[in-house]
């Protein structure tokens, strides 16, 4: 154990020496053999999150603006009775929303109006109501009213996006929670039962997670460059497994293909879960890690 901790320490020093950029991937590590925190890292303050969160807010606003464009195209296609074009626009709109997962908690009721999961309580509205029309009922006509309502809700949210409050701790936790949602809702087939478009959403989830990680990377790198390197490496691996099949239906992939993608997503979540611990903005808790008695 000591040997491997030391090895990790040496690697950390090497990474720090080249500004945290890794030429070759670090060797795989058991989760029990993490790099110890260095004394110089210092505590993270909530104020340090101001810039990352502001940058993320801009990302949210851009994504929602783009989503409005996709919804306009969706409604035009639905008006023309063009089912393939409406479906394609729906997939792009859904991906835009899936790329801003780190802010969902800050959207309040508008999030459930836009992105309620089928099977949740209440009448189905939003993206997945439109999905039901286009992919389940194969009806452009049935999509028109829910798509109009969805557009209104997205516009309201976009206009508020610059003011939504994202708590620093929540933001740090979203580093892995976006992928936790993907594992729970997308790869289980729950979120998009009619289009089976989990891979379309997962691709966007990874892109959104990248944005979170990028905004936090100076903070993470300063404390433990290996955590950042491993997280980025795991996301790259996940992208490589998803991107070639992102237009495929999740329920049509072979068992092994699904295992490889879900496994890469789970591995990335595992790596990203080191992030919030490292940059927890709360005052430090007294260590309670001794067994007494």
């Amino acid at each position, binding site marked *: 154990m000591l040997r491997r901790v030391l090895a990790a320490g040496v690697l950390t020093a090497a990474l720090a020496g080249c500004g945290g950029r890794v030429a070759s991937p670090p060797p795989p590590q058991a989760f029990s053999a993490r790099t110890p925190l260095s004394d110089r890292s210092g505590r993270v303050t909530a104020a340090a999150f101001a810039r990352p969160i502001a940058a993320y807010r801009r990302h949210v606003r851009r994504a929602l603006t783009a989503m409005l464009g996709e919804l306009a195209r969706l409604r035009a296609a639905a008006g023309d009775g063009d089912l393939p074009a409406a479906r394609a626009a729906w997939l792009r709109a859904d991906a835009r929303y899936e790329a801003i997962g780190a802010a969902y908690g800050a959207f309040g009721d508008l999030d459930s109006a836009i992105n309620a999961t089928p099977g949740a309580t209440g009448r189905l509205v939003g993206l997945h109501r439109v999905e039901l029309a286009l992919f389940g009922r194969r009806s452009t006509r049935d999509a028109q009213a829910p798509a109009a309502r969805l557009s209104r809700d997205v516009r309201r949210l976009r206009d508020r996006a610059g003011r939504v409050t994202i708590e620093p701790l929540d933001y740090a936790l979203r580093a892995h929670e976006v992928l936790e949602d993907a594992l729970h809702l997308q790869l289980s087939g729950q979120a998009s039962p009619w289009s089976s478009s989990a891979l379309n959403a997962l691709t966007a989830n990874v892109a959104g997670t990248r944005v979170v990680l990028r905004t936090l990377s100076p903070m993470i790198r300063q404390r433990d460059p290996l955590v950042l390197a491993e997280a980025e490496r795991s996301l790259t691996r996940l992208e490589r497994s998803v991107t070639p099949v992102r237009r495929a239906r999740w329920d049509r992939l072979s*068992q092994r293909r699904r295992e*490889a993608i879900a*496994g890469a997503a789970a591995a990335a979540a595992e790596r990203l879960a080191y992030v919030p611990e490292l940059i927890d903005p709360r005052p430090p808790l007294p260590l309670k*890690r001794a067994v007494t008695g």
Partner: protein
Amino acid sequence: MRRRDLLATAGAALGAGAVAGYGTAAGTGLPAGAAATADALGRRVAVEGVHQAGVLTPRPRQALFAAFDAIAPSRAELAEALRALSERARRLTAEHVALLGAPGEGPTPDTGVLGPRVPPDALTVTIGLGASLFDGRYGLTGRRPAGLKAMPAFPDDQLVGAETHGDLLVQLCAGTQETLLNALRDLMRATRGSLAVRWKIEGFLPAEREPGAGRNLLGFKDGTANPSTADAALMDRLLWTRGRGTFAAVRIIRNRVEFWDRVARSEQELMIGRDKATGAKLAALPADAHIRLARPRTHGTQGQRILRRGYNYSRGIDEAGQLDMGLVFVAFCRSLEHQFEPIQRRLAGEGLADYVKPTGGGYFYLPPGARGGDDWVGSALLS
């Protein structure tokens, strides 16, 4: 707190019924159930050995079988995952202190399911390799153990792809279910990016409520005629390969219990070949009775004997509201082709086949045990 106190406390907390059948409490001064539980929780099955544990070792009450597919990006990472399995198994099978960890070691070092001090609870970790691991992906084609192949579908099988085969098998056995679940979560976490779980099934043994073999879920005594694991020469002949490994045939065999419960007892006994109450072999044993087909006791079939080490299972219902329960059949042998398969061929078309439906499982090669220190199961094949 001393270990004995701890174990007794843990036993009391677990409840008396949890490990009934594990020895007696005579003279301990503890409530019978608590002492039995404490004894069982303290039992240790070492990982190291010439052969892997979980073959000859007595069956603990609970078992879990999980098949994995390799998703490691490289051979080195696959080997690292195999090494991690043995390393974690070493820790998990010994009494240890959990929930410790320095800052920076990750969000949570242990599941916590077993509390801060973890007794061994007879946890046994057994690792098997499937033929598919030796396809081209990791350059292991030339290293496939002779005699290892994918399990074929036998004539009465209704195999479901999602619970059949696998690159790797982990068999976990322990006194209690929570020990199994803690071990599974720990092993999966340590190998997250390299091994994806393909299927999983949990099994249990019946409590010792009468002398002799326990009963399967058809209500018959099962497993009475195993070869003696104490006979080393016999085990060398029937089980161990020259490389000190062995082969496992794992079969998830669903019992159509509602249908079975509508069959006259006399019909059931003729199909099985035993008296349902006593387990005694029928005096007039039909030629097509299950136990005669499985083991004819002829000179020519003596070398076909296998070591069975199965568990009952129960897991939910199907779409018709029928109970999904049956047997996780596990057999170890030196040669699948010359021992297990001839038995299966004899059973083809037996009367019992209407009531027992194999739905999954696979063939796996169990490499020899880890030799201690830094060695790991599978090291000779993968390093």
